[in-house]
């Protein structure tokens, strides 16, 4: 065991003062130490993308970052996507296009798609397809996820 470090994680604008070992992944810290369990953990080695969150404006695999590395940086998770009762356009599009079945991978897909579209709003459909290949879904066959993200992309651009 190594000593724990006191850090503050700022998740969806709220500060969480926690003490973690350096080896604590950001994904584990978000869920276990900060109680924000919307971020899901699938493979724990950067392959599945279920744990994708937005750190400093960039979509990242939170299982491949250590919590101590995210201290002081703005972190956004699925819990912060809706505006009160009003769903984010990406969430609404996933509902409208049946972009989920079991829902396990959904938080990761939403944060991936939102993270990329906020950085590159004019990204083309082909490039978006490549982006979506980042994450794994074992239910939908992907087609409805692609439809949902393309529809949300249009709406996000329109705003």
């Amino acid at each position: 065991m190594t000593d724990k470090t006191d850090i503050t994680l700022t998740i969806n604008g709220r500060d969480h003062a926690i003490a973690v070992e350096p080896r604590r992944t950001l994904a584990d810290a978000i869920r276990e130490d900060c109680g924000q369990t919307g971020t899901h953990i699938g493979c724990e080695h950067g392959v599945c993308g279920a744990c994708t969150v937005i750190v400093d404006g960039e979509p990242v695999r939170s299982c491949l970052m250590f919590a101590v590395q995210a201290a002081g940086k703005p972190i956004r998770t699925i819990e912060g996507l809706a505006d009160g009762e009003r769903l984010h356009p990406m969430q609404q599009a996933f509902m409208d296009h049946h972009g989920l079945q079991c829902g396990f991978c959904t938080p990761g897909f939403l944060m991936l798609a939102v993270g990329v579209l906020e950085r590159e709003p004019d990204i083309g459909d082909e490039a978006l397809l490549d982006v979506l290949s980042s994450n794994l879904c074992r239910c939908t066959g992907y087609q409805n996820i692609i439809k949902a993200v393309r529809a949300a992309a249009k709406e996000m651009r329109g705003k």
Partner: protein
Amino acid sequence: MKPAAFVRHVPRTLDEALKILAQVAPQDGRVLAGGQSLVPIMAFRLAKPAHLVDINEVEGLDRISNDGKLLSIGARVRHAAFHKSVVENPLGLLLTEVARHIAHYPIRVRGTFCGSLAHADPASEWCLVAATLDATMVAKNTRGERPIAAKDYFQGIMSTALAEDELLAEARLPLLASDAKFGFNEFNRRAGDFAMAASLVCYRLQGGKIVEPRVGVGGAEPCPRRIAEAEAALNGKAPGDAVFRAAAEAAASAVEPLEDHQTTGEYRRDLVRAVVRRALEQSIT
């Protein structure tokens, strides 16, 4: 799937990083840059470094510069930096073309160019670029720095000429001639997977004939390298289907392919033939 315990060091300057690395290297200390290869290996406990020197807070390591001859890429330049051309030279476009094949978007915003070179996975796209273009790797420790030529740098599967107390501070790539032509192709079963074979080609045309050909192959052998036999098949010839096929055949014959439980040597040799031909075809489109 949790990494073993380690002590994290967070230097703010390169000198400080090198001092810490010198101290902890003998105790299995490693450099942590983007962490997109090292952290998965730690999750599997294939690596259990006692110390990590985290260079994410070191100033100045994310610099890309060019002096008209060389493009210098700092230790913490992320893959995503190459989503757009970083230099007004065919090299900028080449790097952009290659970058989109590296893993996936969220990996590219964290993983680093030099980290890939230090990790030296045989399937690494950046290692192939370094080998094909004869890059120079600049290794630094507390005693100074030394340049390492690509042909001496790659020493085996995930094995390089870097000493344990050396940090790969910079990679230097030669700018290409303004009329340089290039092509890149890799084969993998799913988008973003490790390449089972990849090829980067680069040359110029003089009077309609290929000059200064470079044919690099990665993912097929323990290290990426230029294939002299394939370059000889191109040199002085006009680009075209027959010449490209001859060069691809020469590359396929020259490699000693890696085998694994899913991929026989002959299959991989066949892939080399395909990726070299496709890279050459891309170079004229």
